């Protein structure tokens, strides 16, 4: 090992770094195990009402039943599919609209107050309107997901476009670049980091939109399971769905991170 060349102090320092990292992991794990352990024990000894709070062992049974009796994957599929679709459409449309605002200063000035107002409206409040317009369909759920992510995308991307170094634009203009070339050669590539930040925000927002949409207008998906479980007082089903939702959101988040790594490695 190379450690033999280090001084005693340095070896100690490295060891303390490693020990600290291990300690953090162990504590994180203990916290998780402790939380579920305490929950299970409290339910078994009747310290809490298991009918209302459910308990980890019942949640596990509910999850397994969901998986074996066939419709777990269907529900997961709906939620993930709707989220991905809402996310994709919301992000793409948001970027296109931001490009249009960048293109026309006039329109961006005209629309500015409307975008600010739309951004501050809680989009969830529009849910019932979508249901009336589009029916209790997958379209209504996706509309909900899009409406939550699109305005944020427009604002983030438009700000990003405006923050591009004017000297970089001047440079391509000295070569005689048209407005479209300024957009393609400078503004869009310079805004890739902003785009990735927007993707990260949007993946979470789209999931929120999808779940709310499923609450209101769906016969499938984790949002539907949560509402259904609540209505029939099957708290184990509700909790199982919430935990599955947690897993889905983590997976989606890491999927976006993976895309980011790819983009970064492709770029530099």
């Amino acid at each position, binding site marked *: 090992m190379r450690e033999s060349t280090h001084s005693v102090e340095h070896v100690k320092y490295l060891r303390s770094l490693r020990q600290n990292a291990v300690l953090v992991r162990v504590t994180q794990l203990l916290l998780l195990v402790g939380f579920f352990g305490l929950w299970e024990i409290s339910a078994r000894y009747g310290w809490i009402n298991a009918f209302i709070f459910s308990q980890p062992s019942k949640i596990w049974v509910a999850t397994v039943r969901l998986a074996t009796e066939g419709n777990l994957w269907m529900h997961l599929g709906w939620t993930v599919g709707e989220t991905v679709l809402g996310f994709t459409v919301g992000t793409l449309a948001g970027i296109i609209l931001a490009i249009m605002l960048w293109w026309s200063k006039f329109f961006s000035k005209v629309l500015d107050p409307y975008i600010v107002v739309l951004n501050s409206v809680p989009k969830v409040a529009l849910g019932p309107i979508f249901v009336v317009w589009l029916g209790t369909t997958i379209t209504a759920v996706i509309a909900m997901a899009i409406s939550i992510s699109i305005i944020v995308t427009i604002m983030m991307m438009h700000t990003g476009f405006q923050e591009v170094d004017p000297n*970089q634009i001047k*440079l391509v203009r*000295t*070569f*005689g670049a048209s407005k479209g070339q300024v957009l393609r050669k*400078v503004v869009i590539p*310079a805004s890739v980091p902003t785009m990735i930040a927007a993707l990260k925000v949007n993946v979470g927002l789209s999931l929120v939109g999808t779940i709310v949409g499923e609450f209101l207008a769906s016969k499938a998906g984790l949002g539907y399971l949560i509402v259904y479980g609540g209505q029939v007082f099957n708290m184990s089903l509700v909790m199982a769905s919430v935990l599955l939702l947690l897993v889905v959101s983590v997976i989606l988040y890491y999927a976006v991170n993976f895309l980011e790594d790819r983009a970064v490695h492709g770029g*530099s």
Partner: protein
Amino acid sequence: MAIVELKDVQLNYHTKNGEIVALQDLNLTIKDQEFVSIVGQSGCGKSTLLSLISGLLKPTKGEVKVNGLPVDGTTGRVGYMLQQDYLFEWRTILDNALLGLEIRGEKTAEAVDEVREMLKVYGLGGFEKYYPSQLSGGMRQRVALIRTLATKPHVLLLDEPFSALDYQNRLSVGEEVVRILRERKKTVIMVTHDIAEAISMANRVVVMTPRPGTIQSIHRIEITDQGLTPIQTREVPTFREYFTAIWKELNVNA
């Protein structure tokens, strides 16, 4: 032969608070293969002058001609080097050097080969696939120069092109850039704050008055005619005389 001609040029800027006359009654003729430095205080309109010649700005009054033709918008026939290299971090060195050709729709196989050759000749041969952040300041500046030369401009405008470099690099990069520009027989107009830099490179040094900017005087620098490099020029005894004369003129305006 006049390559760049400015006749009775005036340029006004408009702001909410009023109109500013940036340049006034400006007349200047630059000959083929001449190197002209422009010095003057900050805000005297030196960079504005370059923007007029490049076509980024239109004169309020008067005429700007390049190669005998009136300048109408940016055509890319005039090369422009900015204060920093502004290499794009998302492009490789080769792709950065090809930017101008790409925009002008002239990225032919021959043009690409020429750019590769230039990179090789100017010491960047192995760096084609590198990204700008992996290069030193001097190398980056050379890439920026090649990017400008790739479109084969007749005239090059340099806007304080070495100001982002430290003093040591400034001298050596300046030495190289001047050598390259002379080899390629370019007509150069350089704006700078640095009197010594202006004299060491130029055939003529133009001193501008404070706003509204116009030409105060033109100094013919005879010592550069002998083909000395900028650093050699600085060693000629009469260098100091030019320096003092120009410094005094600028100081009067202060």
